[in-house]
């Protein structure tokens, strides 16, 4: 102690360094107690969000239009909806309220629409049966029609057929002369 005291007095910094050296030596001793071991790693675990996008063969345009129609007329239009995202998605079909001119009696309440899901238009063998999604007046179409899940890359073809029912002879449908209706269809996909 007399020497330590002497050292402390002579150089307190050297004393502290000596203690630090002892602590390092102790740590090395602990490390030397390990057995053989082995490790493996799984690096680069990358997480990328999927994309939900789809294409519409008539994006921003009408699927079908018909002018100067009379009772008994029909018109057909086709649209292809494709899941262009990287993930599967749940698709739905909605529509805005039809706009009738004149509002009454309302051509949308007279004209009927049939919407058929024909599935993949490129399918040639073992193709699933067509599915009729809706048949009824344009006005009464449900606000939302579920279309099911599309796998990534899947395409469905939808065929719209408009019909003007004929109520009979002698001007039975005269109330609809010159009437028009316009409707918008919207397609949504959700992960």
């Amino acid at each position, binding site marked *: 102690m007399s020497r330590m005291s002497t050292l402390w007095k002579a150089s307190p910094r050297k004393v502290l360094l000596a203690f630090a050296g002892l602590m390092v030596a102790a740590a090395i001793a602990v490390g030397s107690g390990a057995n053989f071991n082995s490790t493996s790693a799984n690096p680069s675990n990358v997480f990328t*969000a*999927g*994309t*939900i*996008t*789809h*294409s*519409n063969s*008539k*994006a*921003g*345009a*009408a*699927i*079908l*239009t*018909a*002018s*100067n*129609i*009379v009772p008994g007329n029909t*018109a057909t*239009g086709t*649209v292809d*909806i494709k899941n262009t*995202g990287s*993930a599967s*998605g749940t698709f739905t079909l909605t529509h805005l309220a039809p706009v009738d001119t004149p509002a009454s009696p309302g*051509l949308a309440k007279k*004209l009927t629409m049939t919407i058929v899901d024909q599935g993949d238009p490129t399918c040639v063998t073992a193709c699933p049966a067509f599915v009729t999604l809706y048949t009824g007046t*344009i006005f009464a179409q449900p606000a939302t029609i579920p279309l099911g899940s599309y796998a990534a890359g899947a395409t469905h073809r939808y065929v*719209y057929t*408009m019909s*003007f029912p004929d109520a009979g002879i*002698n*001007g039975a449908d*005269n109330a*609809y*002369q*010159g*009437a*028009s*209706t*316009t*409707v*918008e*269809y*919207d*397609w*949504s*996909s*959700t*992960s």
Partner: protein
Amino acid sequence: MRGGGTIASKLAATVIVIAACALLAGAATWSNLNAVATNPSNAFTAGTVQIATNSSGSAILSLTNAKPGAVSTGCIQVTYTGTLDATVRLYGAGGGSGLNQYLNLVVTRGTFSGSPSAGSCTGFSADSTNYIGQGAGVIYSGTVANWPSSSGSAQLDPTSSSPGTWSTNSSHGYQFQVTLQSNSAGQGLNGTQTFSFEADNN
């Protein structure tokens, strides 16, 4: 103290950033990934069938206290304004006490050179076609009583065997002429007759 204030403000800013991130993260969890496509303007318009005469529903023929051989002649212009091509039917209900069977009727189809007034035949020219073998433009020749009375039995214009097509703004003139037969059985009788034009889209 100044340095401590800086650290405090940085901490506060960090807390705010973390809170904002938490809010954004919370917002992100409210919705799934989605996409929307639209097909607007699916429009459907019905056509029209519209026909009218220049007589406004008023009579174009009249015989009063007539004797055999008396004649009444009147003309009308019929115009089609519908958007759909159509055929036109001619018919009309008769009435009275029985004179119509003693009235001969000749209906001639033609054109007007100008804009005729109701009932007037000024400017009328018969079609050159001899539709039924009764002369140029004649589409009916018979008694008033035999004029078809309903749409179902109507005569098509100009003939039922070869109806014409009326398009938007088609216009034709028709001359109606009745002559009282020389038949004493018609004495004291009277008759009425309506002439109707009905357009039906093809």
